[in-house]
């Protein structure tokens, strides 16, 4: 059986990536691609790599979109603009994966704290499931409303949950390095090539909005965590370096066991070897274009300090890939459907 999908924000960076995935998905077909600004234009006029996909399908505007019958709607729209779209689809009984930040947090209080204004529909926060199948696969299967993930959040959560759920994280300093696609398809001074090129711009010294998701999913206290962001010279990719003070001294073998158990049966989670040393800690380069999250670690000889490094492609595991993975579960499909593409390495 083939399911029909609507993609909102289809002219954007994350929406474009949903299109790219669905172009090869065996069971989900793009029924409508929504864009106000590109309304009536062919999809390839915006996305040159989709030139021979989707035939003569054109972008449609919001009103037209709601007229199409679809099984699932992907919302890759700016945060704050998803709620009203969600409401309409849920009313119609259409399942929704919302890649924006609108329903990622469970607590309305947290939402207000991190996003600066009260949530317009707190009930949605309660019914929505945080869309990380590695943690919430079961709930996602039974939900009609699933959030996407913050790309930096996904990177951190996937790298840290094996430690966090054992209560091993006493204090943690997180470095995240991100590529330019993370900021979307709209040019700004910061994305202007002469300035963005080869940058090492440190732009959030202590926290980032995605921290809200990390705290929620890993049950950490805010005061035990800092998070520093750096924009680096890549287009795709997010990499977490987590400098951890463990709550107790552990042996390396125990950590290995923890991670192996946690990642077992998680088709997109990979564990790096301990040797050779230059492959011990992953980089986004190794997963570009794929839905994989790759994690490596190393333990200080004092048994208390630890470095965990995780790498993802922000548009895949950090956005569209995880969204399609969630939708697979919501539609009763195999989690990996349409998502087994290999990383492109080296690139």
């Amino acid at each position: 059986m083939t399911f029909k999908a609507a993609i909102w924000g289809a002219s954007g960076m994350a929406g474009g990536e949903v299109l790219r995935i669905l172009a090869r998905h065996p069971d989900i077909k793009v029924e409508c691609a929504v864009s106000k600004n590109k309304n009536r234009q062919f999809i390839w006029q915006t996305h040159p790599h989709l030139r021979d996909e989707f035939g003569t399908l054109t972008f449609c505007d919001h009103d037209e979109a709601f007229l199409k019958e679809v099984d699932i709607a992907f919302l890759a729209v700016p945060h704050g603009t998803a709620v009203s779209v969600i409401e309409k689809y849920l009313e119609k009984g259409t399942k929704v994966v919302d890649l924006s930040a609108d329903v990622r947090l469970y607590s309305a209080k947290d939402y207000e704290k991190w996003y600066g204004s009260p949530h317009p529909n707190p009930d949605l926060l309660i019914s929505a499931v945080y869309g990380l199948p590695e943690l919430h696969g079961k709930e996602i299967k039974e939900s009609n409303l699933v959030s996407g993930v913050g790309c930096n959040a996904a990177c951190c959560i996937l790298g840290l949950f094996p430690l966090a759920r054992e209560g091993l994280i006493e204090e943690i300093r997180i470095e995240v390095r991100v590529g330019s696609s993370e900021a979307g398809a709209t040019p700004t001074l910061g994305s202007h090539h002469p300035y963005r090129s080869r940058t090492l711009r440190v732009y959030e010294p202590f926290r980032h909005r995605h921290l809200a998701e990390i705290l929620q999913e890993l049950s950490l206290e805010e005061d035990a965590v800092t998070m520093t962001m750096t924009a680096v010279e890549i287009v795709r990719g997010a990499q977490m370096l987590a400098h951890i003070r463990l709550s107790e001294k552990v042996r390396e073998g125990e950590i290995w066991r923890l991670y192996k158990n946690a990642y077992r049966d998680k088709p997109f989670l990979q564990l790096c070897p301990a040797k050779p040393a230059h492959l011990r800690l992953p980089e986004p380069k190794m997963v570009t274009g794929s839905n994989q999250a790759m994690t490596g670690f190393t333990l200080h000889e004092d048994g208390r300090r630890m470095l965990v490094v995780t790498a993802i492609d922000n548009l895949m595991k950090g956005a569209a890939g995880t969204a399609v993975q969630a939708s697979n579960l919501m539609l009763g499909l195999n989690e990996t459907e349409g998502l087994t593409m290999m990383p492109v390495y080296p690139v």
Partner: protein
Amino acid sequence: MSKFVNCVVCEGKVEVSDELLEGEIITCPDCGSELEVISLDPLTVAEAPEVQEDWGE
């Protein structure tokens, strides 16, 4: 003769013109903070809310 006021962020000396007005925004040349003149006598400044260029992050 020039007047000075201390920057509330970096505690540096900021030279100000004689024709300073209440409510005027001056920029500290050391640390770049925008300072709003909230009183002229005594000369007092407070940090003004930052209006950022859109650097897109």
